[in-house]
């Protein structure tokens, strides 16, 4: 039973890591039907910003919680700026172009950012300080769930609640939903669509950056390539849950995390990805729109 709980919580942590990244994919898709392949790179840039800021602050001698908070804030700001710029440079000029063009542009952006970080930093793995402290009261349970994992779970939950609140109950959230439903109509009733799209990229990038910093300090190392693998998995999770749907992305991430974790725990980690993708195929066969996705008629 304890083993089951360990595997369950491990899968949940992994799921919440995917969820923080998957949110960005799903929000952007929901609003402009674009799969933003550069999103994984935003996550990676967030982690690198966190590392740089944390290194500087460690020299200044702050305590680790203060460093964690400040590094996260810096990463959020920096990544949000990247998200904003990428949208303006790579996607906005292609807004009226066929859907394939921004997709290729996104892949190009992803390759560009990876290589940029590779050249600007290094191709080696860099150690990331464990900014999340080991809480003493957690010590008896450390073999089941670590402090870092608890912090990740709580942060993800808080981010979800805030995001849901933002979208459901604020004016800007209403404008976002309107833009997602029908961009032209939203424009006609006075929504500044360009601004809303930029805002979506900024929010998506910010959650990815939080994920980047938390995961890097949990795992303890980063390199320029981490965004690619995490991005692919998070994208899978978003599709699984129904791309475009925010609760779907979260649910899809948890389902994916659990599938992988249980596959490893009870079968073999050799088949981790096999199980994950078989599940994806099955869900897409029986529910092509994803677990919580809405089927929409193709616009002509």
């Amino acid at each position, binding site marked *: 039973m304890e083993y089951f709980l360990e595997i369950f919580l*491990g899968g949940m*942590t*992994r799921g919440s890591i995917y969820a923080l990244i998957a949110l960005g994919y799903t929000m952007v898709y929901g609003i402009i039907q674009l799969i933003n392949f550069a999103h994984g790179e935003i996550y990676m840039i967030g982690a690198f910003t966190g590392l740089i800021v944390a290194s500087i602050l460690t020299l200044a001698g702050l305590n680790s919680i203060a460093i964690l908070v400040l590094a996260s804030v810096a990463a959020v700001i920096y990544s949000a700026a990247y998200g904003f710029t990428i949208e303006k440079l790579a996607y906005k000029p292609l807004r009226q172009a066929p859907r394939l063009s921004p997709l290729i542009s996104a892949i190009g952006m992803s390759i560009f950012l990876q290589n940029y970080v590779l050249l600007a930093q290094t191709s080696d*793995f860099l150690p990331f300080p464990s900014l999340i402290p080991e809480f003493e009261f957690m010590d008896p349970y*450390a073999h089941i769930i670590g402090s870092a994992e608890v912090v990740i779970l709580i942060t993800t939950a808080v981010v979800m609640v805030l995001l849901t609140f933002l979208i459901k109950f604020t004016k800007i959230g209403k404008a976002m939903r309107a833009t997602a439903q029908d961009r032209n109509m939203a424009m006609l009733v006075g929504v500044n669509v360009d601004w809303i799209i930029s805002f979506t990229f900024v929010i998506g990038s910010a959650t990815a950056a939080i994920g980047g910093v938390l995961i890097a300090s949990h795992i*303890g190392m980063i390199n320029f390539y981490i965004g690619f693998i995490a991005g692919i998995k998070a994208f899978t999770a978003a599709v699984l849950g129904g791309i475009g749907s925010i609760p779907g992305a979260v649910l899809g991430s948890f389902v994916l995390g659990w599938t992988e974790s249980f596959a490893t725990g009870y079968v073999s*980690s050799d088949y981790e990805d096999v199980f994950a993708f078989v599940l994806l195929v099955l869900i897409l066969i029986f529910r092509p729109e994803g677990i919580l996705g809405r089927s929409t008629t193709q616009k002509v």
Partner: protein
Amino acid sequence: MKKKSWGKSVAVAIICMFAVFAMTGTGIAAETIKIGVAGAHSGDLASYGIPSIKAAELVVKDINAKGGILGRKVELLPEDDVCKPEVATNTATKLVSKGVHVVLGHICSGATKAALGIYNDSKIIVMSPSATNPALTHSGNYPNFYRTIASDYVQARVEVDFALDEMKFKKIAVIHDKGDYGKGLAELAKKFLEDSGKAEVVLYEGVTPGAVDYSAVIQKIRRSKAEAVIFGGYHPEASKIVMGMRKKRMKTVLISDDGVKDDTFIKVAKKYAEGVYATGPKDTSENPMTIAATEAHKKTYGSDPGAFFLNAYAATLALANAIEKAGSTDYDALSKALKTEFVETPLGKISFDERGDAIGVGISVYQVQNGVYVELK
């Protein structure tokens, strides 16, 4: 129309000129002993291949200064294979057509395997400073292949012997990264453990490189009650596994390979790296020939030698020695000389066994102690 034929005749003239040069080239070359140097000389793995050219250059400079081998000067013919099997076959064909007598190379196991058949057909001896894949010598398909690096077979043997005889472990988990190198090592380690009958392999699994975390695998190791984990693979996965185990308060010992015996591992895993065991080539930095070779490299190239430099240095010496002892570059005479004659090299006194693996090139066990790898005697 007129202009075109003018261009053609110029082209023909140029080709003729080159042909003449090429002929004179072969005319002189009949006198020299030609050593092909094949490996990654460009591309992202160039850092593995360039040091072997430099090693060969240094050795050959010495030999030629003393009048060459059997009164013949030695000439090096470097050829790039970018560590890609599909390029390596071209590289091999090129070297064969240039009439090389022996080849130093290739660097990567995959490229070496692809090229060996071509050399074998032309009866050319090949000696690699770095290809560690066990099948290269153990399959028996390549009688013309030799190497001055211990194969993964030896490495797995040392890991297992250490775990069983030194540490007396009874329950061992074998984990690998699903890659050619890591999985190959892990399979051998598992086989050795099972054959010994002294310990039980409680878990045998591959992890996905680059996955966000390994918590499920680590829980599994914990549940298996393994006393030690033998890991086949590279340092990023090893550090994730060891950090995960220590954070879960597990004291399971990690024993790994030369993919982990890398300073980056200690840099990344920091305090969690303490006590980790890893196998790697024997430390030969005290050997006077090593010191001399390193000095010569610094003097000639102005930098410290790179990866596999000493292995390549030793390989060039072994080839030169074999040609001298055999009295010719004849394939059978050379094979016999390589297997019977010992030669003094920076790696120690070496010769080759029936399969082509170097005798006298050893693997040691290292342990991380206070942030550095220390060789265990």
